[in-house]
């Protein structure tokens, strides 16, 4: 409730309404975290104030289509995102793809990413932003901590825990929760998602095995092995959520941390690892180990875990897919039974030794995040302010450098033109002095090769017309 009370004061700071309904809004970071004033001040800089987004995006788009775009154009564009329409989103999409293919695009600058994140949030285009963040190869938008925090905070305010968790998964894939605010927001959003899951479409059921479809054969030079690294190639959202919870729980520690680790490993289908961890905790810790809710969840997950047949015949190399590799990681029926047996024993021991806490994990995590987050805000705010200033100076440097290069190129062209002009003049003036040499050089110069004229391919009508014309000529001759 305390978070709800802070809502009204926070919402007033924004010019446009962020939440559809004030009653459902929650806030973790203060309004000062976004450094709204410093961010808006940058627009008054001489570079950005002269540019209008809607016109500039077309120029930049055309430039990138011709292969002449550069980092400065995109940096200015990313910092001027406002009033974006659907068509402009497509343009932006295309510009980012084109930029990725340039030498500067191998590592997209922080200022560009920050500008895009803020611009898309302000334009309510986060639906288009998330797929771009996920596709690292095409767009290369690696969120830094500050951008990730602002984005997660935006989603949490709207109670879009699923979207906020997507950002947390991104941080998990980078295996970097070194920023405390990022860590706390990720912890909050993923825990909230655990207790408020969204309804997801069930994956398409596999085709019936009985039906024998005709195989399509495709010739390739080399058949690549479908390698599953259990990290970047994770496809299931449940696995991503589980791995994130495990990683966050490991950092958190205590009863809540252990509970998150347990449920995370359960969701990640790593039951033997979870049971081993539980046994280790039981041998070390004397107090409570996990919360009751997590025990129930883990039990359910273990009972529902999918299994594979241990005597399944291996697929032919040409038919192997990454799904088969994922399938191989599943427990066999005997392994599952063994795990269930172990789990029952551990559960009974936990209950008999009173090592299960009755606390509510969601409330505990919410309280923890709410109490902790404010102390880490200030350092991030200072960093963001200094970053905005440094980005401004860097942009100015880029522009100066570009202007210098442009002037240099212009002068070079002028000099080149003058040299040609002078050479021609000299040739005219000294013609009679060097008459013989010039004539000799003209004779010695290679004859330009002329390409043979291509014969025109005639249509049927043209052929008939020509035939008629020939016949007429012959008749006239006979007469």
């Amino acid at each position, binding site marked *: 409730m305390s978070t709800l009370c802070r809502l009204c004061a926070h919402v007033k700071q924004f010019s446009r309404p962020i939440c559809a309904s004030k009653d459902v809004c929650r806030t973790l970071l203060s309004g000062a975290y976004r450094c709204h004033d410093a961010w808006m001040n940058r627009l008054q800089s001489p570079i950005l104030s002269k540019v209008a987004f809607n016109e500039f995006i077309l120029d930049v788009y055309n430039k990138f289509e011709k292969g002449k775009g550069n980092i400065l154009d995109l940096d200015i564009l990313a910092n001027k995102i406002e009033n974006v329409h659907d068509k402009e989103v497509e343009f932006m999409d295309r510009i980012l793809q084109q930029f*990725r*293919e*340039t030498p500067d*695009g*191998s*590592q997209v600058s922080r200022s560009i990413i920050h500008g895009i994140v803020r611009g898309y949030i302000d334009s309510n285009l986060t639906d288009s932003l998330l797929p771009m963040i996920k596709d*690292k*190869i095409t767009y*290369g938008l*690696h969120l*830094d901590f500050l951008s990730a925090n602002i984005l997660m905070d935006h989603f949490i305010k709207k109670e879009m825990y699923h979207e906020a968790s997507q950002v947390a998964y991104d941080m998990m*894939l*980078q*295996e*970097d929760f070194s920023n405390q605010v990022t860590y706390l927001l990720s912890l909050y959003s993923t825990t909230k998602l655990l207790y408020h899951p969204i309804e997801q479409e069930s994956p398409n059921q596999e085709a019936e095995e009985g039906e024998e*479809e*005709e*195989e*399509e*054969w*495709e*010739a*390739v*030079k*080399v*058949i*690549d*092995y479908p*390698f599953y*690294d259990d*990290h*970047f190639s994770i496809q299931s959202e449940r696995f991503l959520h589980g791995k994130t919870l495990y990683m966050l729980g490991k950092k958190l520690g205590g009863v809540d941390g252990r509970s998150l680790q347990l449920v995370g490993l359960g969701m990640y289908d790593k039951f033997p690892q979870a049971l081993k961890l539980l046994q280790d905790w039981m041998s070390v810790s004397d107090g409570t180990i996990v919360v009751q809710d997590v025990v129930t969840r883990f039990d359910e997950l273990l009972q529902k875990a999918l299994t594979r047949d241990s005597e399944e015949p291996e697929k*032919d*190399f*040409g*038919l192997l897919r990454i799904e088969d590799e994922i399938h191989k990681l599943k427990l066999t029926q005997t392994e599952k039974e063994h795990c269930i047996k172990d789990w029952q024993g551990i559960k009974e021991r936990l209950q008999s030794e009173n090592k299960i806490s009755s606390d509510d994990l969601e409330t505990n995590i919410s309280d923890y995040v709410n109490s902790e987050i404010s102390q880490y805000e200030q350092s991030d705010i200072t960093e963001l302010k200094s970053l905005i200033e440094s980005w401004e100076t860097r942009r100015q440097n880029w522009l100066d450098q570009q202007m210098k290069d442009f002037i240099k190129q212009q002068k070079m062209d002028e000099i080149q033109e003058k040299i040609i002009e002078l050479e021609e003049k000299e040739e005219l003036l000294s013609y009679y002095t060097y008459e013989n040499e010039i004539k000799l050089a003209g004779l010695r110069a290679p004859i330009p090769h002329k390409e043979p004229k291509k014969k025109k391919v005639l249509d049927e009508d043209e052929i008939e017309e020509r035939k008629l014309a020939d016949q007429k000529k012959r008749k006239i001759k006979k007469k």
Partner: protein
Amino acid sequence: MPVRFVGKKSFFRGNTLFWLAANLRNNGVGRVVVRTREEREYPEKCYYVLTNVKPDFSEPNLLKGEVWGERIFRGKKCGIQKVEKPHQKDWKLIPKEEEAEFCQITDVFEETKYVPKLIPFPPLMGVILQARNNLPQKPLLKINLPEDAEGFEEDYVQDEGDNVIGIV
């Protein structure tokens, strides 16, 4: 309709180094990567700590670019080198939590080069020497390694036996 690929089976098990780098912040600088082939072949640790990665995104399959990293080959530190074959689908990323444990070097492979103690003379010279000295068989030349050569004794070991074991 299932598709069956027909062709040569790939020997490699992994992803390209460029793909891994493109998925990582700062192009994976500072992260530890391993070639699965080296992992299979050698018992000692072989890995790279990436220092500079420049993938070429203008390539459609992300197969070109340049990578530099601190090389550890068979437990021996080789300094910063240009990574060979980053385009092959044979690379694996070591998770951050396992890095400290993985990078602990336990075994170092020490290469010893054996050189023969005796080598045969050139064919004609061997025949002449045998005829002049009335020897039952062709003579052998004893070679003395230069003792003053720096690091020579460490790298080369002469075979103790009198038999010729070949030339290195």
